[in-house]
Structures are given as structure tokens and as C-alpha cells.
């Protein structure tokens, strides 16, 4: 170590980033305040909706969602899973987590899908975005929590922001991939009959890319869930906080119960969103066989 000290000068990269974050915090304080209010508002509202009604009502509604997305088997499985969560006394935490996941995923998709469309239509954007997305995805997830805590303090908001950054990449990537994969001839047909680029995007590219984009949505939600648990470390409410608490107190029973609830929630979200991706008009049309 001392050997490197003598040959390679110490690069204060971390200090620079710290200074940058401080400058960011100071300069955009009003902006961050607005962001914080909006995110908190969304999260609180959603959590209230999920936690307000009695357990059975919410569980039945969610199970019904699973039923309509896939079928009765998934509906029943989901209901059983929710009962297990409630029986280990994690229902309120699970609904907090669900609210966080949904808000973070929605924001990640609102940013990610347009970025993906842009990248699909512009090679330069695609080339610039690729390393940025790589960086965002491979940076250890905990690291995002540090600047977000500085900017937004503790609670749900830094958790949401860190989650958005962490979960953004697949939304962008799958959208770009999906649009680029659309049959070149079909897009050409749109041009050949005099359609505008915007109309081609709406009527041809997005519908045909939808199965791939939905796979991206699924990935965004799953990544959000994993990150939301980690954001329990900065005091975001939900299952994550109990997991962190169990880790700190070496409490096996609490750790297992909270962890199992995360697993059940993950299975529910994964199955429902992947079922939705097979229900797009294109996926259904392609599944239809010759008569």
C-alpha cells in the first residue's frame, strides 16, 4: 500500500463528488424541496389507500388483480401469500413497501421509457446512455443512499430517489431494445404510406415493442423491490426497516418473517407484471394461430 502511495498520487475523487453533492444541495434546495413534497405526497397517498381499508379487502382486491392478470391459480396463491404476511404481523409493513415500490417504479418508468425511445431513435443518445446506465446499475446500491440522505434527509423520499436511480436502467434498455427490434419492414411500411414519425411511434413501434417493454417494466419493479428493502437502512418505512432491524439485533425470527414477506410480495409482483406482458394486443395477436 505504501508502495502505491509513493508512485501514484492520491486522487481526491471522493472529495470532489462530496463537494459536488454539497453544491448541488445548496444550489437546488428549493427544487429538492418540491421533489420531496411531491414524492412524499404520492407515497403517503398510496400507502393510505393500501393501509386504510381492512386487511381482507385489500388482500382480496390484490388477489382479484392477480386473477384477472393470469388466472384463478395465481389469484388463490396470492391470497394465501397475503394471509401468511398478515399472520406474521407484517401486513402494514408490506403495504408500505408496496407503496414505495409502486411510486419508485412509476417514476423510473416515466423517466426510463421516454429515454429508451429517444435512445432507439438516436444512435448518439444510445451511445452516451449505455455507459451511464452501466454505471448506475453496477454501483453498489447502498452508495446511492449517501447523497440522497444528504439531500432529502431520512425517511421514504431518499429511499424512493435511490430506488429510481437504481431501477432506471432496465426500463431504458428494454424500451430501446424493443423499439429497435421492431421489424424494419413494418416501420418502412409506415413511412411508405406517408405516416409521420410520431404516428409511426404510436401506431407501430410502441405496440410492437410492448411485450419487450413490459418485460422491462417487470425488471424495473423487481429491482425497485430489492432496493426498497435496502432503503430501510435510511429509515424508509416497510419490510426493509424490519430486515435491517433484525440484522442489527441478530433477530432470526423477525428477519425470517420480514424476509419471507418480501419474497411473497416479489412473487406476486413478478407474476402479475409478467402476465400483463403476455396480454398486450401484439402478444395476443402473435399467439393467435392459423385457422
Amino acid at each position, binding site marked *: 500500500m505504501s508502495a502505491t502511495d509513493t508512485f501514484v498520487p492520491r486522487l481526491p475523487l471522493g472529495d470532489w463528488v462530496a463537494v459536488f453533492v454539497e453544491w448541488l444541495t445548496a444550489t437546488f434546495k428549493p427544487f429538492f424541496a418540491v421533489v420531496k413534497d411531491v414524492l412524499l405526497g404520492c407515497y403517503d397517498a398510496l400507502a393510505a389507500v393500501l393501509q386504510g381499508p381492512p386487511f381482507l379487502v385489500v388482500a382480496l382486491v390484490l388477489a382479484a388483480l392477480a386473477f384477472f392478470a393470469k388466472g384463478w391459480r395465481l389469484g388463490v396463491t396470492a391470497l394465501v401469500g397475503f394471509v401468511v404476511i398478515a399472520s406474521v404481523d407484517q401486513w402494514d409493513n408490506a403495504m408500505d413497501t408496496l407503496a414505495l415500490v409502486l411510486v419508485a417504479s412509476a417514476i423510473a418508468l416515466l423517466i426510463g421509457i421516454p429515454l429508451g425511445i429517444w435512445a432507439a431513435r438516436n444512435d448518439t443518445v444510445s451511445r452516451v446512455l449505455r455507459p451511464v446506465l452501466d454505471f448506475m446499475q453496477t454501483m453498489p446500491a447502498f452508495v446511492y443512499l449517501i447523497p440522497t440522505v444528504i439531500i432529502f434527509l431520512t425517511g421514504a423520499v431518499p429511499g424512493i430517489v435511490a430506488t429510481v436511480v437504481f431501477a432506471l436502467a432496465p426500463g431504458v434498455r428494454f424500451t430501446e431494445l424493443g423499439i429497435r427490434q421492431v*421489424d424494419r*419492414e*413494418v416501420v*418502412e*411500411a409506415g*413511412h*411508405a*404510406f*406517408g*405516416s*409521420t414519425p410520431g*404516428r409511426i411511434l404510436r*401506431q*407501430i413501434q410502441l*405496440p*410492437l415493442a410492448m411485450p419487450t417493454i413490459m418485460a422491462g417494466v417487470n425488471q424495473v419493479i423487481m429491482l425497485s423491490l430489492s432496493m426498497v428493502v435496502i432503503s430501510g437502512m435510511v429509515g424508509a418505512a416497510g419490510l426493509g426497516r424490519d430486515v435491517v432491524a433484525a440484522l442489527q439485533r441478530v433477530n432470526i425470527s423477525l428477519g425470517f418473517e420480514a424476509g419471507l414477506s418480501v419474497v411473497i410480495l416479489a412473487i406476486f409482483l413478478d407474476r402479475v407484471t409478467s402476465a400483463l406482458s403476455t396480454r*398486450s*394486443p*401484439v402478444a*395476443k*395477436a*402473435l*399467439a*393467435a*394461430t*392459423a*385457422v
Partner: protein
Amino acid sequence: MTASSTSTSTSTEPPTSTAPVLIPVETEPFPGAHGTDPLPDDRPVAVSVQGVYKVFGRRPQEAVRRLKDGAGRADVKSLGTAAVIDASFDVKQGEIFVVMGLSGSGKSTLIRMLNGLWKPTAGHVLLGDDDLATVNAKQLRALRRSRVSMVFQHFALLPHRTVLDNAAYPLEIQGMGKAERREKAQQALDLVGLGGWQDSLPSQLSGGMRQRVGLARALAADTDVLLMDEAFSALDPLIRREMQEQLLDLQQTLGKTIIFITHDLNEAMHLGDRIAVMRDGRTVQIGTAEEILSDPANDYVAQFVADVDRTRVLTAASVMVRPTAVVPLGGGPRVASRTMREAQVSAAYVVDRQRVLRGVVRDADAVALLKSSGDHATSIESIVHDGVAPVSVDTPLAELFAPAAESPLPVAVTDDKNRLVGVIPRVTLLEAMVPPTLEEPDAVGQDTTEDAPAPQDTTSTEGADA
């Protein structure tokens, strides 16, 4: 009578003939491409391609400059890929113009410049009066909506829309109301034989039916110009044949200008009024199927056409020869028997003053009539057999074998007014099957096109003389 008798008497058996220009050499087909129904030249030009280059790559303009200075495709490889080099041709309204070439010959790039999907690196593409090289994006869209539609190799249908909504797509882009465009789309579907399938999804149809939807979509757009990019190449041979016939039928009724891309020479020959053969980005020959077949521009084209099913491309008109034994209906038995004697045949075709084919007269009948009535007989009308089955000038050779085998005389060829314009001896039919050899490609082609007069002209002159 004297005039017609001289005309028949000059028509001696070709191999021994020393007669002047009127009598072609036996093996020579009659000239002119009237078998493929040539278009009158006064039709307006629908699409004009003028000195068009397309180079993909880093320095396209520099590549074009060098190509214009005579560099080859390989010479400019470092500057870019020259997909199309100096293409020039005019497509007349109502014409089926086929661009034929192997993959990589630049034909797909060429067709995509005709509706502006690619912009030419140099040169002009005129669609009517509009130059696609200079219009802006908005004008280009307007042109595509109103003037030119396209059929794609892999159909390019929207999988999530019904057949009807696919066919209505161009009309939707044109801004037509829902009810109206659906009605028009339904008409287009009925036209291609897909009535009743309008509510199906493309994935529920077979390949041929999907391409019919593609065709209906292009027809629904109701543009004058129809671009077809390898439209039938993805279909199996039987369906392809069926689609070709349907396209020809539709073209007959609708009169669209069709520019058709294919790598299949038989398809090109079958469909095209004219064919442009492309190789390595250059057009090596433009001409009718028969011109390309009988007079290939170079060895490449010659090798290409060597495999062609000549019986389907060549028509009766291209192989028929001048009839040697023709008796005027008004002539007496003496004229008839002399004609047959001189031609050394035992029967002859009988035509009236308008050269309309009336039947056959046999030597025995003529002699019998001559004996029974002597020189009083002035007409052979009583001994003419009308059991003749003539073929029309545009009958493909493939359909001539049966009549040729059954007929004791060379097969009679008549035009649309039933006038006798030529005959096809069996030996001519067989000779036509042999591809022209590379050593003497001109022996068959050029002589016929330049020296010999058109058969119709000759017959009408003779008629006027009589």
C-alpha cells in the same frame, strides 16, 4: 387476283429460296415484340430515374465523383458501399417494369429511392413532376400518401390489427373517416379475393393470404404507382404463380404503374413489360423479356437467361415465320394447286382479302375441283375446310406443342382480328428452345429486329395490292 397470285407464288419454300427481302430465313422469328403487347410510346412517364447513385458510407459524394470518373465498385470500397450506380430509366404509366438482380445487386436500394425511403446520393428521381431528391419531409409524406404505395417482401402487416384495419391503414394516414376507409378497404380486400377474412388477424392467415392483404393495402391507398419489393419471393412456388396471375389481372383492370423487384428471372419475364437487369449496382440491360432472352447484352445476362423456361417467355409472335403456302379465298383451284406445288406442300391456308384466316385447302380437293369444273371454277370456297385451330400471337410456346403435334400443317398464328400473320413449323418451335450461344448472340437477335419488316405491315401491303 393477279396480285394475290404473285404474292403467293413468291412465297416459296424458304431453304431453297433466293427471293428478296420479303422472305425471311426459315429459322428467323418474326421481328418486333408485339407478342408481349408493347406500350404505345406516347404514354406519359410515371416515374423517371435519372443518373441515380446511392452510396452508403463515410464519404458518399467523393465515391460518386470517382464512380462518375469511371472507377469500379471495388475501387471506392474504402469510401463507402456503392449500392446503386448510375441508374437511369423511365417507367411509363400503366407499365409493369421489373428490376431483376441477385441479392446485393442494389435493386432493393433502388426501389426504396423511388418513394424516398432512401435519398439518392446523386441524380434525380421524378415522380410525375416532383423530384424526390429535393422535396422536404412534409412534401415527401404528401407524395407517399397520394402517389406511390408499396408491397413488401415479408408483408409488413401490423400484427395487432385486423385484416380490414391493415388494409385501411394508408387511408387512415390520409385522414379518411373510419366508415369510409373501412368501406374502401373492404373493396380492396374483395378485389384480391379476401372478402370474408376482414376480421381475422394477420397471424391467422397463410403467407399467400397475408401478401394479399399487403396488396389490398397498397391498392386501397389508390395511388398510381405501386412498388413491389420482392413481393412474391417469400411465397411457395404455386402460390407465387397464383399471385402473379392475380397481379396481371388486377393490372389489366386497374392500369397501375407497377415497379416490381425480383431475383427470379422467370417471374421477371412473366410479369414485366420491360425488365432492367441489375448487377453490382449497375443496370446492365433494359428491355422486354424477349429482347433480353434473344439478345442478351453481355455474358452475364446470357448466363442468367440460360436457365429460363423459354417456353413461357417466348410467344408465338417471336418464333413464327412467314406462311409459305397461302391461297386467297377468291383464287380458283388452279391458283391453289400451283401454290401448293411450288411450296411442295399438300395443303395450304386460305385467307380472304383482309387476310382473315378462312380454313385449309387440300391438294387432292383442288385437283378434283379442277378436273370436274375445268377453268370455269373461279372460287375454291366449296372445298375449304374450316377445321383450323389457330393460336394468337401472344400464346406462350409452352402452349404451342399440343397444336403443333396435332396439326399436319405448321400452326397458324392469327392476330386479334383473326388475320393470318404467320405460321410456326414444328422445327422452328424446337429451335426456339435452344438458348442463343454466347459466340454468336447477334445471329438471332439483331438481324430479325433490324432487317425483316414487321409481319403485319407485309400482310396489309399485300392486301392493299390485291
